[in-house]
Structure formats: structure tokens, C-alpha cells
């Protein structure tokens, strides 16, 4: 864009050849004998029939038992003999993407930490060390020492400190440089990592430095373990009670029962069974298309691809660390992560939550100006330019998926240096200003584009107008999902994938007892753990 040159060109120039890079590559391609034209290969993105041969592998016997023992017991090492493992960051990898604010603000899929890298300590070890989350600890290995903020992480192995790499850079750029506590930037974990121990080192000593450092997480926005102890217990107990309702799961045996219906598995609210079927008034009906989504929890692995895709597609602003600590992250799609069971060896459950597009949307009733209304196709439309920002809809949304622009998150564009970043915006989506509410729209810009395209006559010929075939419209999150956990489509077409998933016996509505009639439905996960890996005393699946 700025007339730079690529590595290939630079190397070629050093060799005295100033052919442009694309020609060099094309030439190499032609010489490689891969067949076909370079242009075609570039278009397809791959060259057919060049994959590696399929290999046959077999699991070695008995390995599982050993793994189980380690996971459950851990090393139980004492301070001074702790293990430190170096983990690539899920956001900045080894630090190379540190200057990308989208990634910096994407919450890590397990820790939900943004803008910083941390040292993960298991709850037991943390208790033994007297360390709690947000304490800055000094990790010493030999003569090397690192001050880094600790995060008590359920599921981290006992006696092992997981140090996440990728922070503390000083020349990454305006975003990625190590900054003040309120801005983030993390800690330089390479102070501890030598070529002698690239993946892990042992013999570490951990001590508290006495200072604290605010971590910005998008879940448990503050440390629930601090303060009044009953409060933490109440919250934790409640989460454990709610979980089977929110994230429904079954095991192979449960699923084998032909009468299994995820809808009926967990009556958290006692009237769940008979909360349906009666209405005081005549409800609205939808004659035409009915857009809907299905999210298969069995496929979702919490990789965050959908979160970033949504951010890119929908002009979702990056708000910065301080705003995240104030619970003001703007991401329209969040992946809730919960721990279940023993905190030292928990099961992790995740759930992507965006606007559910309820047919009886509680947010709509309360808007005084009609800024959020239902479309004739069942979308819960949000009109940014009508919004006066009472935030009542946010308060009344049981799923808490609405996001408010508390300050002008696009103020940086007043600065000419950021001009080029305007190119990041999707021109088909409004860039929201401060004071308005926003939320997932089911990528309505894509829906509208497809609808117009389907109705427009073909470039020539006498106006062919076709229906929108199932799969023509993909939402950004769906397109990015590597496991196809998200399916979007039209419920009025009984053959569409989404219709079939909505009829699946694994489907259930999130908080269905409220009778909001969400258009997004979840499919219960079928857990099928290896019995040898399942921890002792915890049967695989527990319903």
C-alpha cells in the first residue's frame, strides 16, 4: 500500500534481479511443474492433488492412564521447585501480533484476559503460595527473574506456572508497546525463557512483590474470590446450579435414549415444563422468510474466530483495557466460559452468546422511541440513528448481549495519523457514535444484499428473479467458524439446514422459560470422554 517491497523482492534484488515479486512467484510456479496456470492456482488458493498421503496411526496403549495421573495429581512441587511452562498467547502468539488491537482485545478463550499476558497458577498452588489474582509475582529461575501478574486459573496443573508469552514488547507499535497498567501491554516473559528451556523450565521460585496489577477480563470482571466470602460462595454455587440449564450436555448413553430432548433436561425454573403454549394475546405471525440461527455446542471449541470475524464485519470498536475493566467491551458476540466441578481439575464449558433475536424480545417493549423493533422477517432490528441511549433495552435483555457506546470509541479518527485505519470499516455497516446502543444484527447487511441481488434481474435477459438458496447468506461468524458450529438460514424453508437443526432433539432455547422465543437455538453437546481419561470418581457425563 505504501509502495513497500516484499522479502522475495528484497532477496531477488540482492541477487541482482529486480523482477516484481508476483512475477517471480509465477515463474517459480511454472518451473515447479505443479500443472495448471499460476493465475488459476492463485484463484483457487490451492493446487489440486498435491496433498500429502494419508497416514495410518494407532494410539499407543496405556498412555491415557499416565496422563490422567498427572492431570489429577500434578507434581505437587514445593515453592523453589516449581515448573514454569511457556505458552504462546492466544491473542498475540509469541508477541508478533502485539500491535493488533483486535487481537489484543479478543479475550483469551480460557482466561478471558485481554490486553495483557499473565502467569497462570492453579488454585491450590496459589493458596499455598499465598498469591491471588492480580498480585504481581516474581518468578525466579536460577539467576533470571520475571515480575508478572498472576491469575489463579482453574485447571492449571498444580505446581506448574503457565507463563504466557507475547507481552511486554517495547517496539511493537502504538498499540502493542508495554504501557501503563491502565493501557495494558503485558510483561516480557522472554526474560525467563532461554534456549535451554524453550517449552518449560523447572526449579522456579515464586514470591509476591506486594504490588497489584489490574487485569482486564471480559468475564468475572473483578475477582469474585475477594471480599465477603459468602458472596463468592453464593455466586459460585449459583453458577454451578445454572450451568446445566445454560449449557446443556448429555453423554453417549443419554443421547442413545430415543426420547432424549435437550429442551427437557434441566428444570432450573420449576415451571419450565408448563411455561409454554399459552399467551394472553394473539401473537404476531411471520408469513415470509424467518431468519434464524443454530449453534451446535458439540462443534464449538471456543476458538474466538467468530468473535474476531464479527468485529471485522460489523465495525465493532476496540475499547481499550480501561474500558474492559469497566465491563464496557463492545464485542457483539461473546463466548461464555464456565468451569464445572473441582476447581483444580474442572471441566470447561463454553457457549457463544450473541443477540438471540427473540420473537418476544423484551428489549423492544421498553424502548421509548422505537429504536429497536421487529422486522417482518423476524429480525430484532436495531436502528442506531434512532437510539437516544436510555439503555433500558440493555437492562431488560436477559442474555445481556446489547452493547452501549459509553464514549466515542472512534475519536481516534479525528487524528490524521489514523486515517488509513478508516479502511478497516465495512462501508455497508453504520459506524456507531457515542450514546447509541448496538448489538448483533444477524449480519443484516448481508441479508439485504442477498435479497436485493436475488430480486435484481440478471445482467442481461428479462429479469430472472430467484429465491435465496439455503447457504447463500452466511453471517460473518458462521463464515469464520472452522467447525461449522454456527448455521444461519431461513426457517420458512423446511429443507434449510437451520430448520432441520431447529427440529433436532438436541436443540434448546437459552433461558427458554422466559418465553422470549429466541430465533437462535443451541444444540446440546454430547460429551463422550474416554473412560480411561475421566478422572476417578467423576463418571463420564453426569445427568
Amino acid at each position: 500500500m505504501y509502495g513497500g517491497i516484499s522479502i522475495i523482492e528484497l532477496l531477488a534484488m540482492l541477487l541482482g534481479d529486480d523482477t516484481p515479486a508476483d512475477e517471480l512467484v509465477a515463474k517459480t510456479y511454472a518451473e515447479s511443474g505443479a500443472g495448471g496456470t499460476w493465475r488459476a492456482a492463485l484463484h483457487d488458493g490451492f493446487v489440486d492433488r498435491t496433498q500429502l498421503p494419508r497416514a495410518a496411526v494407532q494410539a499407543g496403549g496405556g498412555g491415557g492412564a499416565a496422563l490422567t495421573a498427572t492431570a489429577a495429581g500434578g507434581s505437587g512441587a514445593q515453592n523453589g521447585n516449581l515448573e514454569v511452562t511457556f505458552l504462546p498467547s492466544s491473542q498475540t502468539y509469541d508477541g508478533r501480533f502485539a500491535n493488533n488491537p483486535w487481537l489484543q482485545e479478543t479475550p483469551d478463550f480460557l482466561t478471558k484476559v485481554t490486553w495483557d499476558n499473565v502467569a497462570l497458577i492453579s488454585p491450590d498452588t496459589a493458596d499455598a503460595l499465598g498469591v491471588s489474582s492480580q498480585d504481581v509475582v516474581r518468578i525466579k529461575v536460577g539467576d533470571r527473574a520475571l515480575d508478572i501478574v498472576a491469575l489463579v486459573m482453574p485447571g492449571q496443573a498444580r505446581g506448574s506456572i503457565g507463563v504466557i508469552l507475547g507481552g511486554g514488547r517495547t517496539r511493537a507499535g502504538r498499540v502493542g508497546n508495554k504501557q501503563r497498567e491502565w493501557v495494558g501491554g503485558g510483561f516480557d516473559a522472554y526474560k525467563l525463557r532461554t534456549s535451554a528451556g524453550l517449552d518449560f523450565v523447572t526449579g522456579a521460585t515464586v514470591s509476591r512483590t506486594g504490588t497489584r496489577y489490574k487485569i482486564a477480563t471480559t468475564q468475572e470482571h473483578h475477582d469474585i474470590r475477594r471480599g465477603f466470602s459468602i458472596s463468592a460462595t453464593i455466586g459460585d454455587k449459583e453458577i454451578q446450579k445454572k450451568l446445566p440449564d445454560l449449557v446443556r450436555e448429555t453423554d453417549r448413553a443419554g443421547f442413545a435414549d430415543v426420547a432424549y430432548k435437550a429442551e427437557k433436561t434441566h428444570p432450573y425454573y420449576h415451571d419450565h415444563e408448563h411455561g409454554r403454549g399459552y399467551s394472553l394475546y394473539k401473537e404476531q405471525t411471520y408469513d415470509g422468510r424467518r431468519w434464524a440461527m443454530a449453534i451446535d455446542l458439540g462443534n464449538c471449541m471456543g476458538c474466538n474466530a467468530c468473535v474476531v470475524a464479527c468485529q471485522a464485519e460489523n465495525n465493532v470498536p476496540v475499547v481499550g483495557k480501561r474500558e474492559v475493566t469497566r465491563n464496557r467491551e463492545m464485542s457483539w458476540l461473546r463466548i461464555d466460559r464456565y468451569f464445572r466441578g473441582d476447581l483444580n481439575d474442572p471441566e470447561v464449558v463454553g457457549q457463544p452468546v450473541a443477540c438471540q433475536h427473540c420473537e418476544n424480545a423484551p428489549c423492544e417493549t421498553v424502548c421509548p422511541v422505537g429504536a429497536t423493533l421487529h422486522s417482518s422477517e423476524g429480525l430484532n432490528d436495531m436502528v442506531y440513528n434512532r437510539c437516544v441511549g436510555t439503555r433500558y433495552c440493555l437492562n431488560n435483555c436477559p442474555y445481556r448481549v446489547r452493547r452501549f457506546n459509553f464514549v466515542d470509541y472512534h475519536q481516534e479518527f479525528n487524528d490524521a495519523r489514523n486515517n488509513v485505519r478508516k479502511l478497516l470499516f465495512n462501508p455497508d455497516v453504520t459506524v456507531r457514535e457515542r450514546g447509541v446502543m448496538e448489538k448483533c444484527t444477524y449480519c443484516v447487511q448481508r441479508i439485504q444484499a442477498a435479497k436485493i441481488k436475488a430480486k435484481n434481474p440478471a445482467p442481461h435477459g428479462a429479469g430472472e428473479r430467484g429465491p435465496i438458496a439455503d447457504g447463500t447468506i452466511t453471517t460473518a461468524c458462521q463464515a469464520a467458524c472452522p467447525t461449522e458450529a454456527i448455521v444461519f438460514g431461513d426457517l420458512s424453508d423446511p429443507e434449510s439446514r437451520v430448520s432441520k437443526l431447529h427440529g433436532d432433539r438436541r436443540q434448546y432455547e437459552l433461558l427458554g422459560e422466559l418465553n422470549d422465543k429466541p430465533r437462535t437455538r443451541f444444540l446440546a453437546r454430547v460429551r463422550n470422554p474416554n473412560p480411561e481419561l475421566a478422572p476417578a470418581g467423576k463418571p463420564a457425563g453426569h445427568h
Partner: protein
Amino acid sequence: MASPSEAAAGSDGEAQAVFRGITDDVSRVALNPTPKWWWPAFGVSNLMLLCLVVSLYHLFTTGIGVWGNNNIQGWAWDITNFVFWIGIGHAGTLISAVLYLFRQDWRTSINRSAEAMTIFAVAAAGIFPIIHTGRPWFAWWMIPHPNDMGMWPQFRSPLMWDVFAISTYATTSILFWYMGMVPDLATLRDRAKERWKQVGYGLLALGWRGSARQWHRYERAYLILAALSTPLVLSVHSVVSFDFATSQNPGWHTTIFPPYFVAGAIFSGFAMVATLLVPLRHLCGLKHIIKESHIEAMCKIMIATGLMVGGAYGIEIFIAWYSGNAGEWFTFRNRVLGEYSWAYFAMVSCNVLVPQFFWIRKCRTNPWIVVGLCILINVGMWFERFVIIATSLARQAMPGMWGYFSPTRWDVLTFIGSFGLFFTLFLLFARFLPVIAMAEVKAVSPEAHAGKDHH
């Protein structure tokens, strides 16, 4: 006719002296040179008002983000302050209208200042629904008017009900207050010595001359306004409570809210009236008009409403448990035992325990104790709204979006500023307008029947 009036009626000149005494004492407050205590008080109020101006400027130029509100607690101090002030703004109309309908003659000593307080509290409350919006410059979209968007307001929203309820209430309160004040403004007109006051009060008094034919219609209109204000005052806080009661959130979605809010409003309103009047009667030398018995009566009402509010707290919890609704029950357990339990216990102790001191006579008669307890009650009532709004929102149905609210300095400044607005207006009122309804006090005094034949 009661016997004291007969005694008073014995001498006609005495009756006139009594009336003149009332006129003198009340007019003196408005017409005499500014008392020494007024300027420092006004200065402090103005400083607080300045806080409001500064924080509003910062708010309008930066956004709601200057406050601690977030995507979990969309409302926090802003709406807490709004409900707090609107609650306080209930006592005035209640004293004026309801007690008038019940023929509680003692109200005449306090109704004028209580009404004034109502209006100023409604003014302080009224700014919050507007400034709490993200784009206050578009708040006028809530007023139904033809426009080039072809859009109308959405009347199912309780916020629209609020718009109508509060504007009706503000209008009614102001008209009621002003109408009641006209004869007294005429008194000030006729006694003012400076030309600007003569003209000013003269214009405000509309040429009132106490004609019997005019008194006749005036009294009838006053009665009608009282009759209209009584259901209105009950409806306003009910409508405010609908903001919460008609929502879907556990902790908000409660049928008990309308009566509970109204009781709380009367409770806090009387506490505020007492807080203001106890010093006022000392400072303005009105002890013989605003008598100790009036303060005591207000204290007794506070015991009653405090118990009602306490009962509501108990019933809320009972119903949450009895409903068997797991989410509801959790919200209430969390309220009492969760991370906001400090706010809950502040609320209960201030609202339920504190008024119990009023059973003791000394606590009702000692001005320091009365003011102290009343301030505590208002603190408690603020916490009640905070508990309902912020703590209910903190832990709703999705544990993935649980959070904790921390106010910023701008939250505090805005709140202080709203007090500044209230006190500034009240001090201006206490300085320039008749703080006591002279005509009404005269009308209910035993001397009003002097010289009548007994048939």
C-alpha cells in the same frame, strides 16, 4: 363551633391582631433585608450547583462513560438519583392534596414549603432522565410530534409513561403551588417597600384582591386540584416503579413495587421536609407557626411509612422464596448476602431501624435528633434505589455477564450537583416567596370565625 374560637371571638380587635401577626411574621422573611445566614448557605449551594454544571459539561462532551455505568449495569447512580429525587418530590403534593382532602388543618403551616420542595425535587429528578440518555440532544423524540421521519414514540415503553407522568406531575405541582401562593403574593405586594418588589409581586399576584366571588371559585378550584393531585401523586411513583416492575429482570419484576415505591416516596419526602423545615423554623423565626406538633406529626408518619417499607422488604424476600422461581430467589439471596450486602444492610438499618427512634418522644422533639435521623432515612432511601437498580443488574440470568459497579468521581459530582440545584432553588424560595401559606393559616385559625353570629 369549637370553644377556643368562641373565646377568641370575644374581642374583635384581637382577631385582627392575630392575622396581622401572621402576616408580619411571614412577610418579614421575604421583605426584610437578607439575613446573615442566607448568604453562606446560598454560597455553598451555588458551589454545589457549579458541580452540576461542570459535571454536565463533561458528561455532554464526553459521554455516559464518565459515569461508572457499563454493559451490565446500564443504569446505576443516574436512575438511582432520579428515583430518589422523585420520591422526595412526593411529600409536598401529598401534604397539600391528601391532607387537604382529609381536612388535616395542621398541614397549612408546612404545605407551602413542602410544595416548593416538591417542585425543586422534581426539577432535580427531571434532569436525570434527560441527561442519562446517551444522546440527550435527541431526548425530544420522546415527545409525540409530527416529524419528517414519520416516527412516533413507542407508548408501550414505561419510559414513555414516565415522560407523561413526570411532566404532568411537574405541571400540576407548579400550578398547584403557584395558585396557592397568589393570595400570599398579594400580601407581599401590598407590604413591599421597594418598587421592584411591588411591581414583581404585583405581577405575580395577578391583581388578587380577595373578593368573595373570587375566593369562591378559587376554593373550588383548589379542592379540584387537590382531588386531582391525590391520584396523580400515587400514580407518579407507581409509574416510576413500572420502569422496573414491567421489566423481565429478577429483582425488578415485582408486583409489590407500586405501593412499595409510593410508601417509600412518602417516607423519604417527609424526611426531607423535616430536614428542611426544622432549621427553617429556627432561622426564620417561625416556630409559633410551624409548631413542634407539626414536626412530631411528620415523625409519626415516618414511623408508619418506615414500617410499610420494612414490611415490603420482608414480603419481597418471602415472595422470592415462595414463588419457587430460582432466578428470583437467587437475586434476593444475592442482594442480602452477596457482594452488595453492605448496601442492603445500609438500606435496612436506615429505613427500618432508624425511624423506630421516633417512638421516643425526645427524638421527635429535639431538632438535632430529628434532622439527624431524617438525613439517615434519606441515605437509606437512596440506598434502597441503589439496591434495586444496581445490585439487581449485577447478577442477572447469564453468569457470563456478571459484574460489579464502581462509581466514578463524576457520579458523585453529579449527585452533589443535584443537591446544589435543589438547595439553591429552595434558598431562593425561602428568601423571596411566602414560605407559609398565610391565607390558609389565617383561614384555619380560630380567629377566622370571630364575630360570627351563632345560629
